[in-house]
């Protein structure tokens, strides 16, 4: 006696994997992931003057020796943003006229700037900056801060403040934080900020795979049904076996695709490792590494011991829930267009979970979001987010898992009745009536 469930599952899985489109899609996906992880090397490979300094011509019409103070200030600010090695600016104190330098910028040195410093009775100094085009926002803010700091520095120097006092005035102010909630600490505060941006990116693959799963299962059932092949299939296996085979193959496929994504990520990092002589972190950018370091500093690694297994369990049973829902809805449709319309609400539910997880950090303690974190289909994304943010505990996630299991049980109990009727129904007339009637049948 053949195991028809196993056969149907294998056939369904082979149909998904043994296609040229699966190979093409994965080749593109691998390429995209590897390229993104090595984007700096790729950009460098194609060449360009990445070390070109911005020339700043300075015409100083004051007696304050502004150029030296300003160049020190801007260099310090530049290095605090772009790394200690950064040397983005070249400062040139010039005796040439404003018109001459302006012409030079206009004709030859489009990237250069001219700063004309004049004395001003109201603001001590006045600055005029000439550039060929707009100055980017970060550069402008750095220059503005450096100018104001220079002015303060000069002012302090001219009022005979001692060097010791000057150093004290420039030293960083220490802020002693006192948080009255004993359960909170500064690490949690950092984590809230970081997880608002990091966690949604981590769960993006889950969101993508969910959409993939729903479309795949629905399309396959819809295809078999609309070609009437379903009548032959269902006369040889029970609707339960048929649906189960689709769910199994769909979920195995999704897990396989998820595994491949991790593999591509590993490959990307491996290539990065080889290209940067053993230093994966190099070139990732100080901002990315800062986030990684801050995430590690929050003690998240300790939390991951229970966050990862709970999240995985919740995600897998939620995948099953989405599969069941997609299969049941597909059985009710009579053509591909109908299923296209029916899957839209499922996508919206998943999308809602994704956005809510991003908003969770912004609306700390929001009761509405907390309640939604127990709702099946949404909970797989939202519940782990809230857990990482410290807004809910492990018990809440376990409750979410139990609710999803219950939800799946109800989908199997009542959904199978709909499925059995739906797959042999070819008319959209009184569709909902037929489905509710199917649920009531013993």
């Amino acid at each position, binding site marked *: 006696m053949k195991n*028809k469930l196993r*056969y149907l599952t294998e056939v369904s899985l082979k149909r998904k994997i043994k296609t040229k489109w699966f190979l093409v899609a994965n080749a593109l996906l691998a390429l995209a992931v590897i390229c993104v992880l090595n984007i700096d090397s790729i950009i460098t490979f194609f060449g360009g003057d990445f070390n070109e300094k911005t020339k700043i011509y300075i015409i100083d019409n004051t007696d304050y020796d502004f150029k030296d103070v300003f160049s020190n200030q801007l260099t310090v600010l530049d290095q605090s943003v772009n790394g200690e090695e950064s040397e983005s600016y070249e400062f040139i104190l010039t005796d040439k006229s404003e018109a001459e330098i302006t012409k030079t910028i206009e004709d030859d040195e489009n990237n250069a700037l001219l700063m004309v410093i004049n004395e001003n009775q109201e603001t001590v100094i006045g600055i005029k900056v000439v550039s060929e085009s707009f100055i980017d926002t970060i550069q402008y803010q750095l220059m503005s801060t450096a100018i104001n700091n220079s002015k303060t520095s000069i002012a302090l120097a001219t009022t005979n403040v001692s060097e010791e006092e000057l150093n004290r005035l420039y030293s960083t102010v220490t802020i002693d934080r006192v948080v009255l909630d004993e359960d909170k600490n500064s690490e949690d505060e950092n984590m809230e900020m970081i997880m608002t941006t990091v966690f949604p990116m981590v769960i993006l693959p889950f969101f993508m795979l969910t959409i993939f799963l729903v479309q795949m299962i629905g399309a396959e059932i819809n295809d078999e049904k609309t*070609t009437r*092949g379903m*009548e*032959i299939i*269902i006369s*040889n296996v029970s609707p339960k076996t048929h649906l189960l085979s689709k769910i199994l193959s769909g979920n195995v496929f999704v897990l396989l695709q998820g595994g491949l994504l991790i593999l591509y990520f590993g490959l990307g990092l491996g290539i990065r490792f080889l290209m940067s002589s053993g230093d994966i972190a190099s070139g990732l950018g100080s901002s990315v590494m800062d986030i990684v370091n801050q995430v590690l500093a929050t003690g998240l690694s300790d939390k991951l011991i229970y966050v990862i297994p709970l999240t995985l369990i919740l995600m897998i049973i939620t995948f099953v829930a989405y599969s069941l829902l997609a299969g049941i809805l597909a059985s009710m449709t009579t053509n591909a267009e109908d299923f296209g319309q029916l899957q839209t609400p499922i996508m919206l539910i998943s999308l809602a979970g994704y956005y809510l997880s991003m908003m969770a950090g912004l609306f700390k303690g929001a009761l509405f979001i907390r309640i939604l974190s127990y709702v099946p289909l949404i909970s797989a994304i939202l519940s782990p987010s809230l857990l990482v943010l410290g807004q809910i505990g492990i018990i809440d996630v376990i409750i979410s898992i139990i609710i999803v299991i219950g939800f799946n049980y109800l989908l199997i109990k009542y959904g199978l009745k709909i499925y059995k009727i739906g797959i*042999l129904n070819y008319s959209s007339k009184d569709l909902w009536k037929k489905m509710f009637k199917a649920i009531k049948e013993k």
Partner: protein
Amino acid sequence: MLKLENVTKYYGDFLAVDNLSFEVKPGEIFGLLGVNGAGKTTTFRMIMGLLDPTSGVITLDGKNIDYDVTDNIGFLTEERSLLVKLTVKEQCLYYGNLKGMSERKILERMDYLLDRFGISDYKDKKIKELSKGNQQKIQFITAIINEPKLLILDEPFSGLDPFNTELFKDMIVEMSNNGSMIIFSSHRMEHVELFCKKLVIILRGKSVLEGELKEIKEKYQKKNIFIAGDITKEQLEKITGVYQVVERASDFEVKINDSSIVPNVFQEIKNNVITKFVVEEPTLNEIFVAKVGESFEK
């Protein structure tokens, strides 16, 4: 033997099949006839185990229909039931495996049948690339790949040219001779008449006529006389007992209420020059139309 005993099926309040009973013995080709919506598809679905009867019993060789039993049934649906994205080979393997066959056996049988229907070259072609007639051949092949004990054929000749229709006919007759039970449904009565020794006509789910085709025809009172000669339609229409005269290319088809009218007709035209005078049983089509008409009137 396939046995339907007092089978009734309700969809909610709608009665789809009403107390239907019939038997199909090994080697028999049985006609299940009815107008659209008569309940044929529901009956087929119950035999295939796709639907449970509301009441009554369906058995094949004494066993209730379950998934082991359906492994021995072949079903050719009226609409295409092929997965058009698959190749012919994949399709045969898919349906054959669902019937519990081994892959070796499926491939052996597929090669034999593809060869027999003259489409061996299409084994690795996708079904959507085939013509309508060839798709019908593949559908037929997948229905008989398991050498079924019971074969259900719903409009099997749809989309076939006369040559391929003959190929199908030969195969059906051969399977019947080998002991398969065949249920045949078609709106083409000449096909039914060609194959089926027994039949049932259903209307609104209820049997309105059943039995051996020969007996049905004999019992049916009305006859047809085909007459050719120097005679007019008006002359024939005046004869008592004649209820319709159809003028054809080379003769007249005279429809009479029963065989006792035949001598009257002969008497009335014997003085004319008659080149043809043939009394025939009515066609199944006529019986079908008459029976369905009567039932509608009731």
